[in-house]
């Protein structure tokens, strides 16, 4: 993107997003004041482990959470208040302006409809036009995502396609109405290694060609390194570190990010233990006071247990919510490289 666009308001702005699930037994705070923004044409990876709130955040952005979820905070897409959308406007927003690619295409696609029917329904619902026009556009889209013999695959049912082709079809459906924002929830996690890299390269190319802003949820640092411009690392419902992907992976500023990098198996010497993060993520029903990573953190002091640290900006474009930023050791990968 050129400097002119960068100076403009962000495509997506998320402020203090909080999602609580309240039941008789407990209140689970799945997202706890997440704040981030996305420029047009940018790819942001939400990186985190299970329970970090990354998928719930994504669903909140598309308003896909169930009614009992209590959502607070602000989500603006191109100046439009997303959390206030209702009825017709909400239906036009979903699929039209924002589209999502899910992890498991087999459950995200309807097994009794063909790939073509999925696409035609989307296109006609949002863009109108005749059946023949929609069909031509659908085949174009299947070719765009590199599905071989697109015209024949138009009539295939989801179960007749391999995992890789199903995920490509899912991407074609998401792109069918030219969304400004693409949300991808672990879209390559269920795929085999040789297929995963094909789909990642396809997504990277399509994103660059079509220029849509993209939020990519993953737990895999390797996937983030392949596709992201920036990463936002989530822990217990908060963004605890943010920055350009190469910088964050080379020199993390938050002890959790550093720990995640050290514990990811990647070229460690076979005769040495891996530097694992001790303990497990906190119970979202009973979050600790202060920094939620403090109980597992080797650098934690009394001050860390008092209040959740405010953001600090240790370098241009970098943010970390940690009192001990200056003491975080560089990633072990830096030493390897």
């Amino acid at each position, binding site marked *: 993107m050129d400097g002119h666009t960068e100076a403009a308001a962000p495509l997506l702005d998320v402020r203090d997003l909080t999602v609580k699930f309240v039941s008789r037994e407990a209140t689970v705070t799945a997202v706890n004041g997440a704040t981030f923004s996305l420029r047009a044409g940018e790819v942001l990876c939400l990186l985190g*482990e*299970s329970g970090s709130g990354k998928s719930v955040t994504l669903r909140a952005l598309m308003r896909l959470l169930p009614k009992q979820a209590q959502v607070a905070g602000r989500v603006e897409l191109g100046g439009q208040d997303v959390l206030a959308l209702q009825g017709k406007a909400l239906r036009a927003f979903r699929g039209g302006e924002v589209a999502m690619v899910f992890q498991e295409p087999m459950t995200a696609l309807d097994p009794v409809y063909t790939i073509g029917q999925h696409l035609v329904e989307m296109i006609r619902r949002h863009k109108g036009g005749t059946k023949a026009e929609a069909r031509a556009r659908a085949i174009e889209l299947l070719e765009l995502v590199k599905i*071989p013999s697109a015209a024949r695959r138009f009539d295939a049912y989801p179960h007749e396609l*391999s*995992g*890789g*082709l199903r995920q490509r079809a899912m991407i074609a459906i998401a792109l069918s109405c030219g969304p400004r924002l693409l949300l991808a929830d672990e879209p390559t996690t269920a795929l*085999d*290694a*040789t*297929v*995963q*890299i*094909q789909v*990642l*390269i396809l997504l990277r190319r399509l994103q660059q060609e079509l220029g849509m802003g993209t939020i990519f949820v993953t*737990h*895999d*640092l*390797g*996937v983030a*390194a*392949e596709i*992201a411009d920036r990463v936002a690392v989530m822990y217990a419902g908060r963004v605890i570190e943010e920055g350009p*992907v*190469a910088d964050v*992976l*080379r020199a993390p500023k938050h002890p959790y990010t550093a*720990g*995640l*990098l050290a*514990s*990811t*198996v*990647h*070229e*460690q010497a*076979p*005769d040495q*233990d*891996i*530097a*694992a*993060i*001790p303990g*497990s*993520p906190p119970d979202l029903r009973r979050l600790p006071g202060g920094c939620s990573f403090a109980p597992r953190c080797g650098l934690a002091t009394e001050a860390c247990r008092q209040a959740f640290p405010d953001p600090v900006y240790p370098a241009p474009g970098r943010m970390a919510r940690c009192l001990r930023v200056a003491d975080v050791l560089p990633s072990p*990968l830096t030493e390897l*490289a």
Partner: protein
Amino acid sequence: MSAAVEMQPYVDPRDRGGAAQPMLIARELQRHFRVKGAGTGAVVRAVDGVSFTLFKGETLGVVGESGCGKSTLARLLLHLVVPDSGELVFDGDAVGERGGVNVADLRRQVQMVFQDSYSSLNPRMPVQDSIAFGPMVNGRSKTEARRIAHEILVKVGLRPDLFGPRYPHELSGGQKQRVNIARALAVGPRMVILDEAVSALDKSVEAQVLNLLRQLKRTLNLTYLFISHDLNVVRYISDRVLVMYLGQVVELGPAAEVFARARHPYTRALLGSRLSMDAGRRIEAPPLVGDPPSPIDPPSGCRFRTRCPHAESVCEARMPTLGHWEDRSSHVAACHMTRPDSGHSLAGSA
């Protein structure tokens, strides 16, 4: 190799064959599954002529993509799925044959840890009872079995008083997998099959469990068959590696060798698909196109030829063989390019 270093002078009374006798030898194992409603005679060739040796004290990593038969292979080794044909030799004794070792004895010495830590535990049983179940079935008294369960819980890093009485739903994923490891170890096995045992765990927890597995192997003198789709994890934990594609072994060799100098084009493609974790070194072109074909009707000749950049007519005509794989340092690949006399134009180059 680290396998040699980790061999200990302690001699297990059950070690009948001695250190030189492999723990397990598989010869030409085959298992096909009939497919319902896919026409007459359609079969999934899940495991199709798999041979390998597992030496005492080593970790053999098994890698391959979904549908390559690695999980069926694990089940064949324990006779959880009975092979159609082929031979299985455990510590010098043929499995399930007269004069050999029977299946119940085999399962006392070989145990398995599955991927899904929740569904492999009985949800209505406190985990200490799940762990004690094996020893009780094998003749220990209830108190004795409970004592063993508590000892093993300590070994896997869980406090017995705190975690023993809990039910599976009260544990995190990492804790459940520790319980599954404890359950496998409770009967005192010599060999453990780990079928994607760390794949469902978060990275920070996966590292803890990998460290635990390595430590248990040292202290309990275990032999591991470690099945995983994650090449980084396999490289880290394995002494030797076996690569499978569509029900067959395509490459077998010492881990350091296979990762540094892969001889089969499929292994090279798998290695090339690993993500770098460095945004400055992104993969520009995928090493392979398309998905693996269905194991129902695999290609003739070499099964990889439909995706292989070097496929020639000889690859279609004849199925390449793996070659001689019976010692620890063998590095073999089932590819015509590795045989000088195969008739492939690149023969002898790989």
